[in-house]
């Protein structure tokens, strides 16, 4: 019950080394405070491990308790379709306490994307299938809350602070 069932593919948003020996997959929710905390830790891991670490973020919005998690996820996908996924992703987590529809639209504008197009995409649910696909893949992999991490396909059960995660990643790096 602790294996990642959906392999990392071109459909994923990938950060860090594309051919990293260590692949960290996170299932997260943009309105989840624990995910915001984890985001800071993951950024630190990226700085430390550089190209040796490939990081993948997948959507797992718990929309009944986090009503803004779905529009936020769709806004990130909207930005992603235009090569700006991580910019939107980082902006949302950096300003999570301000998360709102106007915030998402304003962030799109700040990234040079069309506010109107984002509003239309949210209205039409253009990116809803992608978000749902992420979510269901997560459910099938036993994701039961956010954030949930998989390191090289195995569920990471430890605390999601930098020290513990780095210690789990360290032994999997290629020998220098």
């Amino acid at each position, binding site marked *: 019950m602790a294996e990642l069932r959906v392999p990392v593919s071109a459909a994923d948003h990938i950060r860090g080394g594309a051919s990293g020996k260590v692949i960290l997959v996170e299932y997260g929710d943009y309105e989840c*405070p624990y995910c915001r905390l984890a985001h800071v830790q993951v950024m630190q891991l990226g700085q430390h491990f550089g190209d040796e670490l490939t990081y993948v973020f997948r959507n*797992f919005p*718990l929309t*009944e308790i986090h009503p803004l998690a779905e529009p936020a996820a769709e806004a990130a996908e909207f930005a992603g379709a235009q090569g700006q996924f991580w910019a939107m992703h980082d902006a949302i987590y950096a300003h999570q306490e301000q998360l709102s529809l106007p915030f998402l639209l304003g962030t799109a504008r700040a990234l040079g994307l069309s506010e109107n197009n984002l509003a239309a995409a949210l209205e039409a649910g253009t990116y809803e299938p992608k978000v749902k696909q992420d*979510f269901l893949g997560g*459910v099938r992999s036993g*994701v*039961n*809350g956010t954030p949930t991490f998989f390191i090289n396909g195995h569920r990471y059960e430890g605390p999601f602070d930098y020290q513990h995660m780095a210690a789990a990643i360290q032994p999997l790096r290629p020998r220098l």
Partner: protein
Amino acid sequence: MGQVLAPGVTAPDFTLRVTPDQTLSLGDLRGRPAILAFYPADWSPVCGDQMAVYNQVLPEFRKYDAEVIGISVDSAWCHQAFAETRHLHFPLLADFEPKGSVARQYGAYRDGDGVCERALFVVDREGIIFWSYRSPIAVNPGADGILDALDRLENQEKGDGRTQSASVGG
């Protein structure tokens, strides 16, 4: 701490309060697969707790025509407040009086702690337990085991030539 009831056993019927003035019986669900999720308590202090995940996975469960039911020893009033706050769209049953009596029948009661185990059962359309699982009390078992069991149940039903009844409804 005993074993939870195993597959092949008839699921003990029960009638429990689902709201302060309504009851629900397992027999009411006969003809559809039922997912029974025993859990220790309402109000666990995390986002994305077990019931929140099932809430979110409801459309998937319904593709199998399956109904999910949460069961704990909390009272119907407590369940009502919990379900309203978390926007839960499935029934929570109160195994409240006599406390834990249904959980005991399923081998899913923790004596001493006085709460239900985290135990999952998939009951088939005829009321027979098809799959059961007890998770460590601190571990939210998620929904993957349930969905895998529903897949196998559906395949078995197809094998039995009951595809028509399986595909109606939902």
